[in-house]
């Protein structure tokens, strides 16, 4: 049941990406992108609810659930930030990443078919997982906005203004501001996640390794924001660093 709903969420995100890209090629923005994404978000929410029922705890018990949770956080951030910043185009760029994360969760072996119900709930562990994955949502969306900036920067540098995408992308400075704000939000959530992780009871080497990696990730993001605020950084390098850091952060899943 949960897999079928998850599959529907993938299809809806794919529809958002394809439909939005088709409109964009004609130089228009589709108001339906946000609707498809809203549908996908609802499906992801239902899947997480079902998994939560099965586990009797926060649905972050296996890698598949973490992918779904990360995708849910990313979609939620898009729905919140996209409308606040009038970045409707963000959906077209976010949808493929959501599609990718959800598809990873569908890979056999990622989602446990019969997850064990939790006997004991460690509040700190749950907080660590939830805050960290929410941070992934904000940091993922920052990476998506950074990609949008890189596309616009390339078009401005090459004088390639004819494409519909160029007309619809927000200005350079606005994209820079959005990336920066999302990184600060992500860093704040990650801080809560790391603190919760440090407080929770350590239960073996793998736990320590991934906490160490999470702390490293936290330092890297802090450094990036600090350098950018203190001495300044060309937006292009800032955007590239944001994208690279996000993909490096995904490697932490491998340490779980």
């Amino acid at each position, binding site marked *: 049941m949960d897999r079928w709903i998850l599959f529907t969420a993938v299809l809806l995100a794919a529809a958002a990406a394809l439909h939005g890209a088709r409109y964009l090629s004609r*130089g228009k923005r589709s108001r339906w992108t946000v609707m498809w994404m809203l549908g996908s978000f609802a499906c992801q929410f239902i899947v997480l609810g079902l998994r939560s029922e099965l586990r009797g705890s926060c649905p972050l018990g296996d890698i598949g659930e973490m992918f779904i949770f990360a995708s849910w956080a990313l979609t939620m951030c898009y729905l919140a930030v996209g409308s606040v910043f009038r970045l409707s185009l963000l959906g077209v760029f976010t949808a493929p990443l959501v599609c990718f994360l959800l598809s990873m969760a569908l890979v056999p072996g990622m989602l446990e078919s019969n997850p064990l119900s939790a006997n004991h709930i460690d509040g700190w562990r749950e907080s660590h997982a939830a805050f960290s994955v929410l941070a992934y949502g904000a940091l993922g969306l920052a990476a998506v906005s950074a990609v949008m900036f890189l596309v616009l920067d390339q078009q401005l540098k090459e*004088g390639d203004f004819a494409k519909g995408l*160029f007309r619809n992308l927000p200005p350079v400075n606005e994209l820079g501001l959005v990336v920066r704000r999302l990184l600060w939000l992500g860093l704040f959530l990650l801080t809560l996640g790391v603190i919760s992780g440090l407080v929770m009871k350590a239960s073996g080497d793998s736990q320590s390794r991934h906490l160490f990696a999470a702390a490293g990730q936290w330092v890297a993001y802090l450094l990036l924001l600090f350098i950018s605020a203190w001495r300044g950084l*060309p937006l292009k390098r800032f955007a590239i660093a944001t994208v690279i850091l996000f993909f490096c952060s995904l490697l932490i899943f491998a340490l779980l």
Partner: protein
Amino acid sequence: MDLICMGLNHEAAPVQVREHFAVEADEQGVRAREIIALSTIAESVVISTCNRMEVYVAAEQADRGIEYLTAYLAKNRDQERMNYLYTKSGEDVKRHLFKLVSGLDSMVLGETEIFGQVKQAYKQALEAGATKGVLNKLFQKSFAVGKRVRTHTRIQMGQTSVGNVAVDLAEKIFGKLKGSEVMVIGAGETSRLVAKSMMSRGASGLTVTNRTMSKAEDLAAELDGTAVPFDQWENVLSRVDIIVSSTGSSEPVLKAAQIQAVRRKRKYRPLFIIDIAVPRDIEAAVSEIDEVYLYDIDKLQHLAEEARESREHQVRLCEKIIEQEL
């Protein structure tokens, strides 16, 4: 009721004739009211812009309406000037008005200002009590058609003048220009126009420099900016966001090394440079700096030309919509 339109525009008459027929912006309602006092004319709207003066009337009899309206317009005007007037009636009036509000009859094809000007003229006539059922219906319909044309075609897409192309690009980089600082190197006519466009869209500061200081001071005074001596403009480089350069120098005026030197001080903020000069004022290597967006006059002119061609291609589509609405 018969519809009549009498007037002249930039295609029909030179500016010396147009200015003779021009009506002051806040006088359009008064004139419309005067016209309905004429026999057989029940309703009237007077539209006067820098490119046209047109009178739209609803008359009980078209031929008598034209006769009285001609007589009204001929007051204090010689026959030579009157010969420039065109007269339209019936469906042609509707077609002409729909084209007018859609920007198809404008000097700059597809421009949007005319929509607001017609609306303003109609509002004045309405408030002066010069319109009733026929013209109210016609003008309301024309506004709906104008909106439909602009929504369903690309008639207004792109900018057709170099100044506006530059402003659009600046807005693509900085968003709103409010708070942006502009520096003009060389006080030529094109750079004056570009700087003027930037200031009119909200740029907050302007610095002008020129080898002849008096020219820099004149331009700075005109655009409410500051003039700096030509040997001191580098000091301003760290705080400006937009540079417009158009000197007659045969050597590059701005080199990559000069920008590299102030990058840190600028905190790597985006820098938009427009090089209007031939030979070019800005060293080509400047465009390789990450945060610099450099464009020369050819690029801007090419973009303006592309927009003009695109608008011309859209005319047929616009006319099709107008025919459907008639």
